[in-house]
């Protein structure tokens, strides 16, 4: 079966899975340097608001950033992970905010809307990023 792309919107998905115990190990061994290199000050404040939940929250955010890179098809372009930010919304939902080069690349790719879902269970945290692309303007 072949599928021919039309001129209408297209959907792109990125997903990632991170082991929470490995993030806990990184937090213990690399501490502040680890947090500050991956997360924005707001993300760090949210994650550390609950010491017990901090490893799971950092793991979910790392997964969200990697899932976004996958959705952007950017595994070999230099990008500061802090330019991909998970926003905690009232009611417990999360949203994705792109800054700087990440935002520029998303605009060039024709991203018109993006949705983020985070989850954690046991020793794993996961993230799924779903994107609607306006294929008429995107480079993909």
């Amino acid at each position, binding site marked *: 079966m072949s599928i021919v792309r039309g001129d209408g919107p297209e959907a792109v998905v990125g997903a*990632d899975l991170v082991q929470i115990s490995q993030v806990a190990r*990184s937090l213990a061994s*690399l501490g502040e*340097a680890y947090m500050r*290199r991956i997360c924005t000050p707001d993300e760090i404040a949210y994650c550390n608001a609950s010491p017990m939940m901090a490893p799971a929250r950092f793991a979910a955010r*790392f997964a969200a950033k*990697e899932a976004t890179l996958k959705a952007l098809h950017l*595994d070999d372009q230099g*990008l500061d*992970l802090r330019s991909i930010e998970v926003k905690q919304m009232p009611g417990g939902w999360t949203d994705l905010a792109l800054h700087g080069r990440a935002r520029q690349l998303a605009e060039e790719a024709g991203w018109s809307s993006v949705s983020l879902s985070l989850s954690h269970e046991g020793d794993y945290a996961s993230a799924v990023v779903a994107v609607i692309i306006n294929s008429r303007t995107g480079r993909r």
Partner: protein
Amino acid sequence: MKEEITTRIRDILTEHGRLAKEVAALGEDGDLYQAGMTSHASVNVMLALEGAFDVEFPDVMLRRSVFESIASIRAAIEELTGGR
């Protein structure tokens, strides 16, 4: 000097790389991702390299290809340290 850098890189990969095989068994051009290094582990490796060599990887170097082998990591370290 080159051997010293390589040894330190191997030590850091042993501690932070979470490879599925012995680092000592890896050739300098061996693919670290194929050897089991995850994207999360590669960030740990990067931070450990920054501490060990007193450097900071700029955004343009935060690429998969920079961390895919011992040789590519060494080339990045040599570029960042300028041979000091």
